[in-house]
């Protein structure tokens, strides 16, 4: 399955195959760092706002797309909020990968992650964004498929996911 996380209310890029789109929603709460998704209700967030199953959703995906504004070289706050709430995707235990400590897998799927950033960016922000997505996918033991930058939402016309 493809998961598309976008901060665009009017997201209208064509998407093929089985997919789910997560768009801005006023019910969304931020991750409060309680770690209850690891030891109280393992695999599921305890915040009942309709976004408590992001970790499980990641576990069913083979492709994840972020379509969002680039903010200081990061995902936009909404997309980052969704990513933060998906902490339960990983197991709390640690493994050493590439000489660094990371989390053990909870699920077997290997996620291919792509990001379509829109908005004006500096070269420094673009470099940071590339490093960030590689680091994030190293952490999730997935791969970075594609990272693209567009000056505006309109410039994404013709792209399909």
């Amino acid at each position, binding site marked *: 399955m493809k998961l598309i996380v976008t901060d665009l209310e009017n997201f209208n890029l064509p998407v093929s195959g089985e997919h789910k789109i997560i768009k801005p929603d006023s019910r969304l709460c*931020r*991750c*409060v*760092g*309680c*770690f209850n998704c*690891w*030891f*109280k209700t*393992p*695999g*599921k967030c305890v915040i009942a706002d309709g976004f408590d*199953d992001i*970790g*499980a959703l990641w*576990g069913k995906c083979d492709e994840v797309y972020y379509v969002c504004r680039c*903010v*200081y*070289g*990061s*995902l*936009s*706050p*909404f997309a*980052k*909020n969704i*990513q*933060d709430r998906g*902490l339960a995707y990983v*197991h*709390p*235990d*640690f493994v050493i990968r590439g000489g*660094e*400590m*990371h989390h053990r897998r*909870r*699920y077997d799927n290997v996620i291919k992650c792509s990001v379509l950033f829109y908005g004006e960016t*500096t070269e*420094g*922000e673009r*470099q*940071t964004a590339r*490093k*960030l997505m590689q*680091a*994030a996918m190293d*952490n999730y033991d997935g791969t970075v498929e594609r990272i693209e930058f567009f000056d505006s939402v309109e410039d994404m016309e013709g792209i399909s996911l």
Partner: protein
Amino acid sequence: MTVALINASPKLSHSSSWALIKNTVGFFPNKTNVKMLDMHTNTVSENTVSELLAADAWVLFFPLYVDALPSHVLRCLMQLEERARGKTLKVYAVINCGFYEGEQTEVAFEIVENFCIRAGLEFCGGVGVGGGGMLSTTPVLEDMKHNKTAIIHELKRLAKSVVRGRNHGVKFKSVSIPRIMYKVGAEALWRINAVKYGNKLSDLGKRY
């Protein structure tokens, strides 16, 4: 001078960021006006904005979330970007991560630096702290100093840099125990907490 120590943990209490602030505040000389400010939610209150804009330096304390800033910190920085523009402000950060290696905070420092460039503020580095899981789990922080020696010493040097208005550079430190001990200790703690909530140990790996 006025220094704002900003607790940007999403947790209201018992956070590693708070533990680090408590260990830093005493390193500032008495003549320094140190303000402890909170940034726990998606917006910065008008009172806090005023205090921040009146300061000479900010030291942001927050946890690493998936190699970057927690979403609420991003939102707060976006709110502050316009308001802080044109101010003569130096920005430092102390970023803690649950992994052993403080180096894993490197990209988050870049994000803070990119914010500073956008807002026209001076990015002055800080400390990336590994082993964050150990920092808030002891009731008496002072008793933990032997386990956090390298971190404590770097926080002392950071306070000195802030007071002198110097660029500290980005330094990485970790708790002063071997990585394997940190791993074993953290994983034991997860199991104790899981059992406390009535889970079986095998539930830690539950799939949906």
